[in-house]
């Protein structure tokens, strides 16, 4: 098959403003004046909550700090969020509900030193290749690895056992594992008594999920479920890692809680080598949330509803903070449809192509009175804007920090100058603030960071110098004189109840199958994901010539392909209840009959998110990208034209 070389995007090199319906070149003065004027107009007319900020999970901590400060201080609303909503918000919600903190509890190194590794809904071999090298070290060192995934992925090929469950049956599987552990007497009663609460109710709730019932629902053989349960519970140390296979569901936070339950049952949390790791998909999705670029937290993941916390920030910022949560990305899109959000400042995001049910997203953005997009490319979203501001690429054209999946804050350094008139995000935000009556100026990213360190106890000990000397520091780091252990929640193992703190609650959960039901008309389950060489909406990864890139494909099991009379390479039509696309067929023996797979990397050729459903998690707001009902058909005629 010939390699696909998608059209690449060119960098934005000067500001653009919309005039008579088209974008034309403008000076920075004009573009910034226009952008600020539109925000002022809408806030004056409808109040600050008509404004929404989409901050960038790709940009630095420093930029995210300034962006949320802009939203809260300059505009006066908590409507700030980022695309973490489309991936790992449920992990943050689930972990903070159980432990009071939204970060993964372990470090990469611990995966090398553990005894059992469970990769649940995680194609890490291809999606997080360098994390998987730590997993491979663990496997070579004797750890057993279990892959739980509907697809037999590259990860599953390294597993001792692959548990190929039906899409959306993670809770039944986790419940069956829990029941088996309890019935075999392998649960850690000392840990449960001391460090958790709600065990009795939890044990009762999983009681119906016998191995046989679970086999019926999940499609995983009872014996394999039993083996996972016994291996996980008997291990001295065990790591439970997950990715979007858990979180891109309509009941995603429940999925996360179901996995956390297993760690509470066995005591596999809060010790070296035992923990829970959500693997993040974007370079700074952890940091964006840590910096308060989410509607319910101030920098340092501090709750906005806590009056003492608010008072501290009001003192520093000399501005009142609304004592209520703002809108999530999902709420914002709905509020746009309702006319409640009328203006949006969108930094480095491409929701037109990244959101589920993309057509309705376009409709909603087009209802805005004033849309400002700040990006390095003229993305499909930027093409809808009233003002487009060319930014520098955070990872190589600006200074600052990112925070990775093991909570490690690391220095980002400027290696090249941005092209043309592209400007640093922080400079742009400050210019915007100045035009709206706040005379901000930061000399350097370090000055922003030092403000973060003053406001967030978890970051206080991380000077730029220490970050460089220690090759990054994991939070929490409250003191400049010490480094904390690489894992979180060691307190749960303290013998003194006062030191142990709040017990971690078990969650009682119900199984809720995917919203988009299979029927005769739409009999196949479509799940989506990433490939090794491409990234998200492809705007970034289309820039280099990957020999591995094949373009978008509809991947089918050999059985389904034979039944539908489809052969490798021929175009087929894929339809869901929301839309329809055409893509070439690829036959993958790693797929089971009834399951089909597509990526979302080539939306300009095949817009996969026309098919996906915008059924969202009520707690975290993440859409069910992983489960759509579709039909695949042979094209009757050759392509016209």
């Amino acid at each position: 098959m010939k390699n696909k070389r998608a059209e690449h995007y060119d960098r934005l090199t000067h500001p653009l403003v919309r005039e008579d319906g088209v974008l034309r070149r403008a000076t920075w003065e004009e573009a910034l004046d226009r952008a600020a004027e539109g925000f002022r107009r809408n806030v004056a007319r409808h109040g600050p909550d008509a404004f929404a900020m989409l901050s960038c999970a790709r940009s630095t901590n420093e930029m995210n700090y300034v962006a949320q400060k802009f939203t809260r201080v300059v505009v006066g609303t908590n409507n700030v969020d980022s695309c973490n909503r489309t991936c790992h918000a449920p992990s943050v919600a689930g972990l903070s509900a159980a432990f009071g903190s939204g970060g993964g509890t372990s470090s990469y190194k611990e995966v090398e030193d553990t005894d059992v590794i469970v990769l649940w809904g995680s194609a890490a071999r291809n999606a997080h290749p360098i994390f998987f090298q730590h997993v491979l070290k663990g496997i070579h060192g004797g750890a057993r690895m279990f892959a739980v995934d509907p697809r037999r992925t590259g990860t599953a090929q390294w597993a001792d056992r692959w548990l190929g469950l039906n899409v959306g049956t993670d809770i039944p599987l986790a419940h069956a594992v829990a029941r088996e552990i309890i019935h075999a007497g392998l649960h850690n009663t000392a840990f449960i008594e001391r460090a958790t609460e709600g065990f009795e109710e939890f044990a009762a709730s999983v009681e119906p999920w016998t191995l046989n019932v679970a086999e019926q629902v999940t499609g995983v053989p009872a014996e394999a479920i039993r083996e996972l349960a016994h291996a996980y519970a008997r291990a001295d140390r065990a790591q439970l890692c997950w990715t979007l296979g858990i979180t891109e569901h309509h009941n995603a936070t429940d999925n996360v809680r179901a996995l956390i339950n297993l760690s509470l049952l066995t005591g596999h949390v809060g010790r070296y080598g035992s923990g829970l790791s959500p693997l993040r998909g974007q370079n700074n999705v952890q940091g964006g949330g840590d910096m308060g670029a989410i509607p319910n937290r101030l920098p340092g993941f501090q709750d906005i509803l806590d009056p003492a916390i608010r008072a501290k920030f009001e003192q520093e910022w000399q501005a009142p903070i609304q004592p209520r949560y703002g809108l999530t990305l999902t709420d914002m899109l709905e509020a746009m449809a309702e006319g409640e959000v009328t203006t949006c400042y969108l930094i480095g995001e491409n929701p037109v192509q990244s959101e589920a049910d993309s057509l309705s997203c376009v409709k909603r953005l087009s209802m805005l009175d004033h849309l400002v997009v700040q990006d390095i490319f003229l993305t499909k979203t930027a093409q809808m804007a009233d003002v487009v501001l060319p930014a520098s690429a955070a990872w190589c054209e600006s200074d600052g920090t990112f925070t990775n999946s093991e909570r490690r804050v690391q220095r980002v350094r400027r290696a090249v100058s941005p092209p043309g008139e592209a400007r640093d995000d922080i400079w742009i935000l400050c210019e915007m603030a100045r035009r709206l009556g706040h005379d901000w100026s930061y000399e350097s990213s370090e000055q922003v960071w030092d403000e973060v360190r003053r406001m967030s106890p978890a970051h206080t000990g991380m000077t730029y110098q220490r970050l460089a000397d220690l090759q990054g520091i994991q939070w929490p780091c409250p003191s400049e004189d010490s480094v904390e252990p690489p894992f979180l929640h060691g307190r749960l193992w303290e013998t003194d109840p006062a030191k142990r703190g709040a017990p971690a609650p078990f969650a009682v959960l119900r199984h809720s199958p995917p919203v988009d039901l299979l029927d005769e008309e739409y009999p196949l389950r479509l799940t989506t994901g990433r490939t090794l060489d491409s990234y998200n909406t492809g705007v970034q990864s289309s820039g280099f010539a990957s020999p591995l890139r094949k373009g978008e494909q509809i991947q089918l099991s050999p059985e389904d392909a034979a039944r539908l009379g489809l052969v490798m390479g021929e175009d087929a039509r894929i339809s869901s209840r929301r839309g329809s696309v055409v893509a070439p067929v690829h036959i993958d023996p790693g797929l089971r009959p009834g399951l089909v797979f597509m990526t979302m990397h080539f939306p300009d050729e095949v817009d996969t998110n026309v098919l996906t459903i915008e059924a969202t998690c009520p707690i975290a707001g993440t859409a069910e990208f992983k489960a759509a009902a579709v039909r695949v058909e042979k094209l009757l005629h050759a392509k016209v034209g």
Partner: protein
Amino acid sequence: MTVPLPPPRRLIELTVDGAPVRVPEGSTILDACGGADIPTLCYGDTLTPKNACRVCVVEVEGARTLVPACSRKVEAGMVVGTSTERARHSRKVVLELLASSVDLSTTPRAAGWMEEYGARPDRFGTDAATVEQPVKVDNDLYVRDYAKCILCYKCVDACGDQWQNTFAIGVAGRGFDAMISTEYDAPLTDSACVYCGNCVEVCPTGALSFKSEFDMREAGTWDESQQTQTTTICSYCGVGCNLTLHVQENQIVKVSSPHDNPVTHGNLCIKGRFGYQHVQNVRPPSPVRDESLPEPSPDLATGLRP
């Protein structure tokens, strides 16, 4: 709260070039010779020693043969000579044998070592056998020039079970005909290669190089003295790999990763290693100025006004 620490290691005392040295048990002679400038080729700081090139040999008192410093562990009371006549002569011969058969023109420091040890590879005559062969350019990301390969096996180890676990390359043939090869010598595009470039990262001679470096060398524009190296963080996923960007004239020309980094240990994936081009895809300015466009706007950030 407990964090496991590695078990304490005894300190071993030995003598290097007449001076006493104390290093932790399990260290190699190379570790113990911090100060001495011992040449190495097949040694990799992230790989298990392979003992292939023999250019790091030193003399150990009482040992029948010279020992490779990169792999021989220190022992109490060992007396090591890093620059004895025997060691220097051996290094000279090793360099002569390598340089007479392999193109060492892009091996860092090779020219300096040849001079230091008085190596004369031409003494074997002009018809000495070489591994000269055409360069393999079969993809847009990296190039294989096996005329520069000294068969140190580092790329095979990095691709295999020491890091990448992809096993796309191995050693084919025996004796002088041995060479690094994909299965059936297929082009990379028909091999198991996943283009992580971790082989390029460890290659000591430039036999494996970025296509960008290869092209610039061909064009005569590759100039390391004009390059900066800046370590930053990859933007492709949440793992947080450290990237060292090699920049010449404001263009990224090559990407590596620090070998002592706790996240990467010098390894990257295809996106981190080769996926930087998007930031430098800039449309060249149109030669004819479009009258409908306004004058280029002033540089606000630096206050430079026309």
